[in-house]
């Protein structure tokens, strides 16, 4: 397939993905806005005012970057896992598999679809947060780079999950039992400096902690960890997951017989 044709195939997949999640906006775009709005009201206004300051910022200021990142992570992941599993389940993935579209274009198309939804939801949540606090950005390049890379990682992870999933239960296991606990314990709501040394060390094994803190650094200029580790770790995850997903596609694992 020529480069121009690959570009057409890629834009077809991305367009289809964007049309899909915007068509069902009540299921995809509205819920995170409501959930995050409630978080801002409860943790920011009601409880947050009693918590006081966290690392030199009001609690609502502290919690906003974490909540934005949480919605980016959840939406990037769930977009790809549900969309790709959906086409696998309905067998419409065969439309792509019988075509000359290369595997890396298929993967890139779905990842960009997931990134689009993750970033769009992140942007909407950011707008909602502006009703509760004044956001000033410490470093725009760091903020954009880490949120984009994180969306890529979780889109790839969603793709990986969808390839292996056989039932709809299989696509909810990872978000429920792995992603949600890691996100909640990943420094979204607190600074790990509040934890005893042992739990601080345990927390440092959680990759989401690095992503949330790097993003918080981009916005507030504070972090519990060295953000270089965050960028390095995210990059490693991107490379690793890309290689694994491409291998799965090349082998046709659970896609071809």
């Amino acid at each position, binding site marked *: 397939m020529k480069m121009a044709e690959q570009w057409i*195939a890629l834009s077809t997949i991305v367009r289809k993905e964007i049309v899909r999640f915007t068509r069902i906006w009540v299921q995809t775009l509205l819920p995170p806005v409501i959930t995050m709005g409630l978080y801002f009201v409860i943790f920011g206004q009601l409880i947050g005012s009693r918590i006081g300051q966290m690392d030199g910022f009001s609690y609502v200021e502290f919690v906003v970057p974490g909540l934005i990142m949480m919605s980016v992570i959840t939406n990037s992941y769930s977009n790809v896992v549900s969309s790709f599993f959906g086409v696998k389940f309905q067998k419409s993935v*065969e439309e792509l*598999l019988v075509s*000359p579209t290369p595997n890396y274009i298929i993967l890139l198309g779905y990842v960009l679809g997931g990134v689009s939804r993750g970033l769009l939801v992140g942007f909407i949540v950011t707008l909602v947060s502006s009703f509760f606090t004044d956001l000033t950005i410490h470093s725009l390049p760091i903020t954009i780079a880490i949120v984009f890379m994180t969306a890529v990682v979780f889109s790839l992870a969603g793709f990986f999950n969808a390839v292996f999933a056989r039932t709809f239960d299989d696509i909810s296991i990872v978000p429920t039992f792995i992603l949600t606990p890691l996100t909640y314990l990943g420094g979204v709501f607190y600074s790990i400096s509040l934890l005893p040394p042992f739990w601080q060390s345990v927390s440092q094994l959680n990759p989401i902690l690095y992503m949330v803190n790097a993003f918080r650094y981009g916005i507030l200029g504070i972090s519990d960890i060295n953000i270089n580790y965050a960028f390095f770790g995210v990059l490693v995850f991107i490379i690793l997951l890309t290689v694994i997903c491409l291998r799965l596609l090349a082998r046709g694992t659970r896609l071809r017989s």
Partner: protein
Amino acid sequence: MTKALSISGLKKSYDNGFEALKGIDLSVEEGDFFALLGPNGAGKSTTIGVLCSLVVKSAGQVSIFGTDIDQDFSKAKRDVGVVPQEFNFNQFEKVADIVINQGGYYGLPRAVAVERAEKYLRKLGLWEKRNMPSRSLSGGMKRRLLIARALVHEPRLLILDEPTAGVDIELRRSMWKFLKEINAEGVTIILTTHYLEEAESLCRHVAIIDKGLIVENTNMKSLLQRLDKEVFVFDLLSVLTQAPSLEDYPVTLLDGKTLEVELKKGQSLNHVFSLLADQSIEVVSMRNKANRLEELFVSLVDKTEDQDEPVVGAKQ
């Protein structure tokens, strides 16, 4: 003439040890209308799956218009359009989007894909439904949508896996007409079907596959010539009380006004008519008892069944 499809030694074994294809050799000429027949589970869909990359072959070579799929599957795929047995499109997507997006996956610029989608949706009577979600279509419309989708990149080889399954006779005939038209335009067609009448009426060449092996591969004419007998049904003007005697022709009286007469190869229908006329029996209409190809098919498939029969009393 270029071969549209050339298969040699094609094998497919699954992880559980099941051998779906045991070494298939097959070739289809460009421009042919080719029938691939076989009972359920014979290996038809597996063969098609290999041609469109949904099934990974275990051994053998496959070339599509001279392109070896092991060398450049991407190039080979451009020449193939597949109409699968199952409705494998997104049930929530609009009819037109399904066809247009498929064009995109083949690298067609959107404007061209839109134009082609209109062309084929109109030809297949689906244009009015273009903005409907595909799940709202009837079974026959869904089958036609699969054909429109398979044609959007204008393949040189169209493979249809039981395209008329569950389709009413009127629609089936309109689909036959459409397929004959595109074949006349130069598209090579490979068809699998359970309606042997369909294969007989459409196809010039036929291969019969059974238990993962090709048991027959010839042109339709010579296959049908091998029929050594045919049964004709005569509808009579008057009621008979017993079957007439017609010399060498076995006769069965089904009811008072319906007669079945068996003719061996080379025997003359005119002779049967004259024997009937001699006995003042008037025939008002006549038809074949069964589809001729069906009889051959059953005999060929039965033959392989016999070969597989265990020898009774054989030592274990």
